[in-house]
């Protein structure tokens, strides 16, 4: 039976993995290795600003070990959603790292760069042709939203990866891709049918997350037309039916319908069976191709600029009158800010109260259970950084010095851990697109460039 083996080194390139796990995985002679780069999960900032959400140092370390292993064993290295958000600067960051590592280690290979960032003019044309549709509760896309976007990426399916493999690329660095797509591509190109190929990708995209104990470590998957088998090369971890089934629920609205570029993976009839105490076999997944083929669009737009400070109180008298106190802080801040020309519409003051509802906000059912100390994250957002900084500064002073009934701590209400206490956090982005684009050819939005190193 046709059997294809894939090694995912870690959940996100830059999260790290033990070298011993990579070596153990490589000793099983995988047909390819790879690592996904992320998703929309860390929020809109990284897509907007064009920087990775893992450190460059950590990403380079992971990439270097993967490149050495792939070239030594003459297998493809495939990286999805480079740099975490998969925009052009993210892709170029990894491309430059790969070139640098190739020079340093004397490695030679053909590299493909698959671009995912979208041209705004093209998108407007597609919008006018009614080829862009909203997902979920989103409204129809407006041209204005396209204009305001800092960056727009489309999420590729397996086809661009398969084209790059076909062209003989050994190292494939891709912009935004569906998390399972790199793996689904390699398996399908090895003649594995789409359902197990996609399911294998679902398991591999987060690597050892599908094992227990969960950790950032390698996952080895063997896929055939009939099943997917998961095991962790690290002997301290095991893929059990529970750990694998748990991971199959990951980050998807439905546990059974997984919408992917080009089709739907249906896991309703899956069976999870232990084949040893460390490996689990999954079978019974189904794939239905989509018509038309759609790719998801993601974009981030500038929302504001932020400044914040962190402080805490240990004063029981203040904690007893917390709501009134914070109300006075707000009133005093508004009055003082107005004095220097920042009106109520020029900024937003958000006081997050940790120890009460800092984590769940208005969904917190226990917001009256206050402990002996309470932490505050005081945040100001405004249309410009200077306004955010100025209003934060005056609100910080109000947190420290606003009087309250029965106050005994007359020198100050708050403990500030740092000097300076205020942090200028820079631009705040928001996700502005969650739409799909109909495509006639799944390769067209994703141009591929080749270079030989």
């Amino acid at each position: 039976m046709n059997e294809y083996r894939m090694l995912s080194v870690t959940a996100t390139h830059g999260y790290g993995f033990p070298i011993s796990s990579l070596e153990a995985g490589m000793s099983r002679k995988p047909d390819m290795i790879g690592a996904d780069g992320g998703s929309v999960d860390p929020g809109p900032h990284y897509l907007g600003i064009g920087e990775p959400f893992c450190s460059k140092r950590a990403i380079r370390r992971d990439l270097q070990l993967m490149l050495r292993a792939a070239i030594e064993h003459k297998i493809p290295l495939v990286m999805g959603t480079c740099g975490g958000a998969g925009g052009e600067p993210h892709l170029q960051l990894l491309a430059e790292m790969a070139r640098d590592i190739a020079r340093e280690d004397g490695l030679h290979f053909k590299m493909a760069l698959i671009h995912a960032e979208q041209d705004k003019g093209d998108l407007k044309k597609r919008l006018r042709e009614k080829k862009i549709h909203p997902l979920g509760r989103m409204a129809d896309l407006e041209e204005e939203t396209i204009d305001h976007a800092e960056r727009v990426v489309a999420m590729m399916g397996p086809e661009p990866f398969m084209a790059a493999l076909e062209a003989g690329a050994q190292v494939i660095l891709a912009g935004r891709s569906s998390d399972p797509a790199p793996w689904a591509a390699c398996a399908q190109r090895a003649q594995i049918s789409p359902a197990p190929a996609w399911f294998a990708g679902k398991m591999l995209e987060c690597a050892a997350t599908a094992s227990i104990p969960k950790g950032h470590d390698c996952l080895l998957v063997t896929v055939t037309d009939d099943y997917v088998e998961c095991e962790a090369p690290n002997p301290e971890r095991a893929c059990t039916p529970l750990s694998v089934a748990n991971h199959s629920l990951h980050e998807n609205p439905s546990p059974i319908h997984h919408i992917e570029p080009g089709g739907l993976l249906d896991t309703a009839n899956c069976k999870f069976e232990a084949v040893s105490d460390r490996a689990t076999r999954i079978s019974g997944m189904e794939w239905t191709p989509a018509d038309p083929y759609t790719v998801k669009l993601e974009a981030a737009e500038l929302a504001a600029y932020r400044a914040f400070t962190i402080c805490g109180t240990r004063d029981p008298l203040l904690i007893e009158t917390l709501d009134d106190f914070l109300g006075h802080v707000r009133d005093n801040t508004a009055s003082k800010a107005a004095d220097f020309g920042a009106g109520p519409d020029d900024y937003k003051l958000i006081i997050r109260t940790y120890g009460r509802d800092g984590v769940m906000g208005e969904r917190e059912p226990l917001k009256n259970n206050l402990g002996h100390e309470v932490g505050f994250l005081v945040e100001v957002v405004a249309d410009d950084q200077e306004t955010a900084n100025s209003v934060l500064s005056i609100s910080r002073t109000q947190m420290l010095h606003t009087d309250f009934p029965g106050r005994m701590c007359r020198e100050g209400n708050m403990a500030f851990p740092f000097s300076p206490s205020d942090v200028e956090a820079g631009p705040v982005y928001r996700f502005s697109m969650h739409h799909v684009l109909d495509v006639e050819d799944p390769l067209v939005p994703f141009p591929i460039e080749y270079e030989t190193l």
Partner: protein
Amino acid sequence: MPTIREVAKVCKSKNAGPFDLTIDVVFADAETYRKVVESGVLNAGLFARLYGVSENEVLFTPYEAANAFKATIPRLVPSGDIGDTDVYGAQQHAPLLDVELPI
């Protein structure tokens, strides 16, 4: 009466895209899963009550193959937007832990 924290193996939350939150409860085996189904406690109405959303905003799916239940609800604020408290949506599961299961 036993609670979810005592009976389940996994109780977790996470983003399902930037606009939705998905909450999973996974049980150890088919027998426990069947008892939980029969108890009728886990349903869209429970999630609507615990999270202050209307029942038709809850996508509730029992998943027998994994001995699991999944509920997906709208986030209060899109991930990372102004006012969000939990960018990854990873700490929104706690209200479920003390739900009693008559099994």
